[in-house]
């Protein structure tokens, strides 16, 4: 059996490429990285009318074959067949936004000039019609010399015709001169072609201009953005709770089943204390991540995200970044990993590196369990300043501390290690669109799957290793297992280091497994304090709270909170940083500076609190 032929989708950003890709391939997509770089490779299977299956890839959106970002470099190399380990596509589908012909035809000409079998998808013709544009695909076909098929990806219009055209596309010998056109000449040609293809154009008021008048208004626009963000966070945390609770109960029930039916043994302990509690602690954050991504994907698909970047640009410029960094940092409030991956759209490498380095300072959802336990135990639930709860205020302050820390660090980094020309902000603001349910569903499924796979691999491995470290060598008669274990001995060493900032040995012990994921700190403390085993996590948290109150002083607890604002305790973040920066240099730097900050601020908090007599 021969390998299936390869078809690649290529086009400008915002041409509706991904929607067309989803419509052509359905939900069965493979997402991986191009080897050596951190650009996502999306591929799927499509069946041509002849019954021949082909592999379809969705190349990153580009404005030209002359790349200005890592994404664009991949597109350019893959199309030319220069990408190592990746055979050149056998045919290309150029995706054009029908209402943006003049712009998109520039890149389209460049692609067509390569002489490969090529078909043009004149996409989003419905939106063009809404804008009052009447187009003549035949005229465009004449001008470009390749088949042009009008499509509406989200309504599945024109898909069969497109598949037909792809099947019959052949190698062409582009006319002399076509290949050697300069960008300026192509632009002139694009203008003429667009003119010829547009049959009529009415001066209808375009919806997006009206929306922008409100959403990009210098005063109303930012207020709407902040209100929206506030709503998103409310919805994320309120909406996720019942699902997280249900998942927690599920994990607890499973643990109960194992305890009941498996005879007591080390293997059973490994299954319950190691695997189920460790992986389970992470899996309960799935609803939170899904809900946050629902909002992020909706904002992206509707075209609003680019407006948010526009509105935030001035503020980000204040610390040497641009509006483009806003989206990754927003994602980092759920989890730094998708946030760091989202930095790929940042064109400037120094901007991108700075954003990666500060992303872990955004308060991710894994910190919440730690914050919740400590705040519930040590901060009295009383109202201050007319009805505002003190506990909520402390939680809010921890979020703000992370944001302020990130901004200050960005400012310093942009003047030192990531110094360079002031970063710019050049970004197309796409037209507003109703997001297609199918595209949202596919996007959410992909995020959820990436998250679960991570829980099943990295976090699983780390949990098992930590469990082994905590359980070997076995304790002698009358000796505490934790004291005897390798982890316990490590904690003794670590305790010397963290004593000056008010931490005790139990906390040092909790910090070691919490390297895997911050929320593990809670379960480690619980184990260490030998809280009577309870399948109800809430009861466990309550009991743990009482334990903490009797063993920790208030300054110690506050120092522990300050520590977690900064500490880079998440293996996966370090791993993803290594992957995204192609080496150990920057993850090492990230670890060093974040631990440094955590140590200094925990110490400052502790000694200030002690001095204040708290």
């Amino acid at each position, binding site marked *: 059996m021969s390998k299936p032929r390869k078809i690649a989708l290529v086009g400008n950003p915002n041409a509706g490429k991904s929607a067309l890709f989803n419509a052509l391939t359905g939900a069965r997509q493979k997402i991986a990285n191009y080897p050596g770089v951190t650009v996502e490779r999306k591929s799927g299977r499509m069946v041509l009318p002849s019954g021949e299956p082909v592999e379809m890839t969705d190349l990153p959106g580009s404005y*030209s074959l002359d790349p200005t970002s890592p994404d664009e470099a991949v597109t350019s190399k893959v199309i030319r067949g220069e990408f190592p380990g990746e055979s050149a596509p056998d045919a290309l589908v150029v995706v054009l936004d029908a209402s943006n012909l003049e712009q998109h035809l520039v890149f389209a000409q460049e692609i067509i000039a390569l002489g490969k079998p090529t078909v043009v998808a004149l996409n989003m013709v419905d939106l063009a019609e809404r804008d009052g544009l009447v187009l003549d695909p035949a005229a465009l076909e004449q001008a470009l010399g390749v088949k042009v098929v009008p499509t509406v990806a989200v309504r599945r219009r024109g898909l069969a015709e497109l598949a037909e055209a792809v099947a019959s596309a052949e190698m062409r010998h582009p006319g002399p001169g076509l290949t050697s056109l300069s*960008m300026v000449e192509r632009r002139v040609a694009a203008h003429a072609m667009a003119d010829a293809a547009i049959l009529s154009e009415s001066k209808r008021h375009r919806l997006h201009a009206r929306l922008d008048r409100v959403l990009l208004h210098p005063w109303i626009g930012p207020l709407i953005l902040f209100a929206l963000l506030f709503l998103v966070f409310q919805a994320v945390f309120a909406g996720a709770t019942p699902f997280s609770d249900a998942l927690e109960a599920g994990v607890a029930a499973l643990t109960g089943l194992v305890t009941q039916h498996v005879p007591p043994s080390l293997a059973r302990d490994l299954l319950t204390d190691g695997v189920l509690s460790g992986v389970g602690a992470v899996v309960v954050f799935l609803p939170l991540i899904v809900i946050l991504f629902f909002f992020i994907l909706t904002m992206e698909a509707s075209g609003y995200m680019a407006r948010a970047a526009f509105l935030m*640009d001035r503020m980000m410029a204040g610390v040497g970044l641009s509006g483009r960094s806003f989206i990754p940092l927003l994602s980092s409030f759920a989890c730094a990993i998708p946030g760091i991956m989202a930095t790929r759209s940042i064109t400037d490498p120094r901007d991108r590196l700075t954003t990666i380095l500060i992303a872990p300072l955004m308060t991710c959802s894994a910190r919440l369990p730690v914050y919740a336990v400590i705040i519930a135990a040590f901060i009295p639930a009383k109202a201050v300043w007319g009805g505002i709860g003190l506990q909520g205020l402390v939680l809010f302050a921890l979020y703000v501390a992370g944001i302020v820390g990130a901004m200050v660090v960005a400012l310093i980094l942009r003047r030192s290690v990531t110094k360079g020309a002031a970063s710019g902000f050049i970004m197309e603001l796409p037209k507003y669109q109703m997001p297609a349910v199918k595209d949202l569903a596919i996007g959410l499924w992909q995020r959820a799957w990436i998250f679960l796979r991570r829980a099943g691999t990295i976090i699983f491995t780390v949990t098992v290793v930590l469990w082994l470290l905590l359980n070997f060598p076995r304790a002698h008669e009358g000796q505490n297992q934790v004291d005897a274990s390798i982890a316990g001995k490590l904690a003794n060493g670590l305790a010397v280091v963290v004593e000056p900032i008010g931490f005790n040995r139990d906390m040092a012990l909790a910090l070691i497994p919490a390297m895997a994921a911050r929320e593990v700190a809670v379960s480690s403390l619980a184990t260490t304090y030998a809280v009577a085993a309870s399948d109800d996590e809430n009861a466990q948290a309550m009991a743990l709270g009482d334990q903490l109150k009797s063993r920790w002083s208030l300054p110690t607890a506050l120092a522990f909170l300050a520590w977690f604002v900064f500490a880079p305790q998440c293996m996966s973040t370090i791993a993803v940083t290594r992957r995204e920066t192609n080496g150990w240099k920057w993850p090492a730097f990230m670890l060093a500076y974040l631990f440094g900050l955590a140590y200094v601020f925990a110490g400052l908090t502790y000694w200030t609190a002690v001095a204040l007599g708290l």
Partner: protein
Amino acid sequence: MTLDLLEPGQAARITAVHWDVLVEEEARRLRALGIDDGAKVRVAHRGVFGGRDPIALAIGRMTVAVRRAHAAAMEVELL
């Protein structure tokens, strides 16, 4: 007159671009978006909370956000 001096709603034609003051990659990106000699642009929106940055340019049927520094490198004639 340069593009950064325009108020929202004003349209102009770019007559010359001082590419040398722009970062090479940004210059290429602007050209790829069609922001180049001879292009007709309109300032659609600019600034947040009374600031002058960034600027949303309408070019053809597209809207592109740029910074004031980019606009300052472009000589324009009002239309």
